[in-house]
């Protein structure tokens, strides 16, 4: 009996939640920039506001019972202050312009700070509290003066890998009197990537070694033969720069080796048989980072894509991105 009741209660809650989400999505749709207006601002009396109501009631009763005109006056004045306070609190959000800032990447589970830009066009705004609707992290409080634009960093814990998709951002204010809380829920689409949470293992080779795996599947050591010089590209390892030529004033050149024959490595999805997909991705992420740190060239083999061995930040980011979006439907990389 109780069970069915709770089940139906849960059902109702879920449905209400769904209705609520679809309503808020229609009311304040996701966007990169929003200027707060009556469409996006909610306002209700705060707990303090209700306490103030109680005070007014007490004062009114005192005024009536003692037939005291000045207490009547005080009560009415404070009442009208409470009413005007609503406009003051609303005004503290109204006209504030909020937009996404530069893209931000990170690993799943990391605590990062998501930057957003706020811009005060009409007036100053004080006591602005930013928090995430689903995460109870510390609240960042800020204020902004008229005609000012500034960046606010809001602590955020990254969730699942894939494209960054934050919760609704709750911006609340109680300024100036604390009698009302006025807030808005913003769906700001900060561009960014959440890479899989890396798992670091002592050695890539041993980790990759399965009994049924050919030894050279992971480790391919070339013959290190120098074949010539080429102009420096961004991402080339510092070890390969022809310092002697640079010293002679012939510009920045990189030594080229045959077949990138440094220690070179394939980071292979298929070498990780018998592990869950997410764990595989995490291990691969760890390897990418390790290989990059050790300055080795590496390639990535995923069921969907193979990235030729290389090294450098660009290469690393490309690998990480592929790992992040692996199996995600939106994986539409350029």
């Amino acid at each position, binding site marked *: 009996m109780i069970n069915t009741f709770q089940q139906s209660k849960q059902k109702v809650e879920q449905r209400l939640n769904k209705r609520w989400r679809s309503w808020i999505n229609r009311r304040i749709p996701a966007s990169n920039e929003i200027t707060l207006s009556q469409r996006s601002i909610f306002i209700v009396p705060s707990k303090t506001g209700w306490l103030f109501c109680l005070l007014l009631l007490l004062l009114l009763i005192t005024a009536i019972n003692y037939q005291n005109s000045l207490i*009547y006056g005080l009560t009415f004045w404070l009442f009208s202050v409470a009413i005007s306070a609503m*406009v*003051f609190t609303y005004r503290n959000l109204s006209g504030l312009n909020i937009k996404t800032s530069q893209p931000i990447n990170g690993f799943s589970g990391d605590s990062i700070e998501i930057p957003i830009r706020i811009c005060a066009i009409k007036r100053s705004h004080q006591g602005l509290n930013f928090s995430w609707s689903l995460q109870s992290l510390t609240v960042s409080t800020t204020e902004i003066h008229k005609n000012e634009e500034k960046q606010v960093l809001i602590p955020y814990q990254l969730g699942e890998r894939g494209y960054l998709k934050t919760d609704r951002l709750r911006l609340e204010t109680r300024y100036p009197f604390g009698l009302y809380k006025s807030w808005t829920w913003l769906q700001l689409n900060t561009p960014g990537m959440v890479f899989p949470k890396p798992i670091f293992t002592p050695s890539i080779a041993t980790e990759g070694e399965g009994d049924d795996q050919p030894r050279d599947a992971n480790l391919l050591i070339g013959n290190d033969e120098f074949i010539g010089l080429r102009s420096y590209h961004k991402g080339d390892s510092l070890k390969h720069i022809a310092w002697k030529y640079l010293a002679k004033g012939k510009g920045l050149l990189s030594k080229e080796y045959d077949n990138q024959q440094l220690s070179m490595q394939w980071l292979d999805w298929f070498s990780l048989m018998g592990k869950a997909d997410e764990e595989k991705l995490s291990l691969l992420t760890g390897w990418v980072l390790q290989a990059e740190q050790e300055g080795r060239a590496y390639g990535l083999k995923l069921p969907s894509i193979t990235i030729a061995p290389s090294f450098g930040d660009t290469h690393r980011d490309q690998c990480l991105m592929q790992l992040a979006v692996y199996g995600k439907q939106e994986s539409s990389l350029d």
Partner: protein
Amino acid sequence: MTKDFPRSALVWLLVSITSVMIPLQMHIPLWTSLVFILVVAWRWLMHLGRLPFPTTMIKIIVVTLGISAVIISTKGRFHLEGATTFILVASLLKVLEIKTQRDGYIVIFLSFFLLGVSFLYDQGILAALYSLIVVWLLISALVGLHQTLHRENEYKQLFSAAGKTSVQVLALSLPIMLVLFILFPRLGPLWSLNLQSSKAKTGLSEEMSPGDIAELSKSDELVFRVTFDKQPPAADTWYWRGLVLDRFKIKNGRAVWSSSGVFDQIDWYPQSWQPEMQEGVYDYRITQEASDHKWLFGLRGVAAMESGIGMKENDLITSNKKLYQRKEYRVRSQPTIAIADQGLRPFVRNQSLQLVDSSNPKSRLLAQQIMLENTSDQARVDSALNYYQANNFVYTLKPIPMQENDIDSFLFDNRAGFCAHFSSSFVFMMRSMNIPARVVSGYQGGEINPESGHITVRQYDAHAWAEVWLEGKGWVSVDPTAEVAPQRIRLGLRDSLPDGDEFLPGNNFSLIKLSNFQLLNDLRLRLDELNYLWHQSVLNFNKDKQGSMLKDWFGREALKKSLYWLAGLFCAFLLLVSAILLWPGRKKKRTQIEKSLDSLNNKLSRYGLNRKEHEGLNDYSQRLQANFPHEAASIQRLFDQLQQHYYGDQGVGDEPNLTKFIKQMSKRLTKDRSNRPQ
């Protein structure tokens, strides 16, 4: 979410609670100011970091001490002062442990309530003006609670911001407050109030022994104000009757007069007697300050004129409730009317002749003598009055204290006294002669304000006189004091004291003492008039006044219409407030370049070539060049110049040229586009 208490708000808070405390201090025990100083000092040292926050143990000790102090000082009785002290001490102790924003709210809200309570003690115009500052401080403190202090040197900025916001909200709220004040339906008290001030009000008491009224003469406190509808009667007939004292007692050898209770029968309005309006009948309005008694005042021949007021047989009016608040009432009087001229009922007559046989033998002898010398009661009265004059009696506020048989020692030894001595001894002699007589106490005279015409009666106008019953005439007023000090009646106490007597002794700050200076006296009268207006228009604005005013304004169904108006005006003012607050600031003046760029943008938008939001100047330039290959060079040049204009060091001066260039380009581009086949 518990927010820390912003440090700048502490200053606001301490200042505002001090401002609440100051006017209350006069009415509550003195030790609270010691608590106040300790708390403020302690909290400030905490703020500076010299003292730690109190631990739970210390808090418990302090609270216990505080509550015990309140209980001891109120002696366990529950009255207004006790309740006020309790709330005050509670909020002071809360100040001590302010740590979070929430604590701040509680202290501020308690302070608002205390401010309201302080109006129970004083509703004067000065108190009202002072409270404006208090409200401002408290609202500023509320704003201060929501500010964040980032740098130490920002204090000043935050203070001025909070102060300004506070002024703004208070000013904007004024119209709504006025609407509510006038139109919000006033109610009668919801339940009877037991919580009253414990302090005995100065004023007449139900018992009078010679020497009592001299105490009252030291006070310039307001008793009531009178406004006559038409011309008031002559000033020397202003005998405001309050109490009839017809029981004689000897207490510690001294004569004491009190009310006997034979007249306790009350006829309530409208069953009571009312004189017809005619010549010699006066209609007037009295605004009487709280007295904690039921008795009301009126001239002789008084009649109750509104419900809640009744009449007694001894020509007095009374209220059905004790006057814990100021009360305004209408009165009608016919001073010339004969009272009880048909004869006295036996028990009234007995009461009016009652004496204590053994007391004051010499005075009795004197009375017997006068009685034998004269044949009629009227002649006996005159003769007795004459005795005071003939024996050089002196009117003084500082009579020598008289012990046993005080009437004897007054009449034969000291021969100096105050009105209570004169009336007491006179009534004693009358009764000794078998003439029914009684002491009447009340006020005599008052100061008329030349501007507004109202009469102000103060405590020092307290007076006692006598009434004797004469065959065929009924009760006749006799004032023995007038025989000795006629100037007391004509000019009032201030001008009638002999040289050695000081008017309002010990009351050095009384404005009335300054009345010898013409300018100051004018000022004093002006202030009095202002106070009168304040009382009439604001403080006395009660259920009845509101009712009659609304009836004047709206006629039939006044309440309903007034509520519509209340709602309408309320919304209108609220809209006004929103409009003022949300009105967009003045737009920045647009430059010529911006205007011409806009028009270019408008023209190109027809072809979908307007500049997109967030499209950089460079990107836009590229897009335009791609679309207008013939004009690519000019476009490049234009955008280079624009870049230079916006971001370059100089080039602001070339505005007219640039504008011209933009207009030119605008023409060329549209022409180019329209020449092209669609």
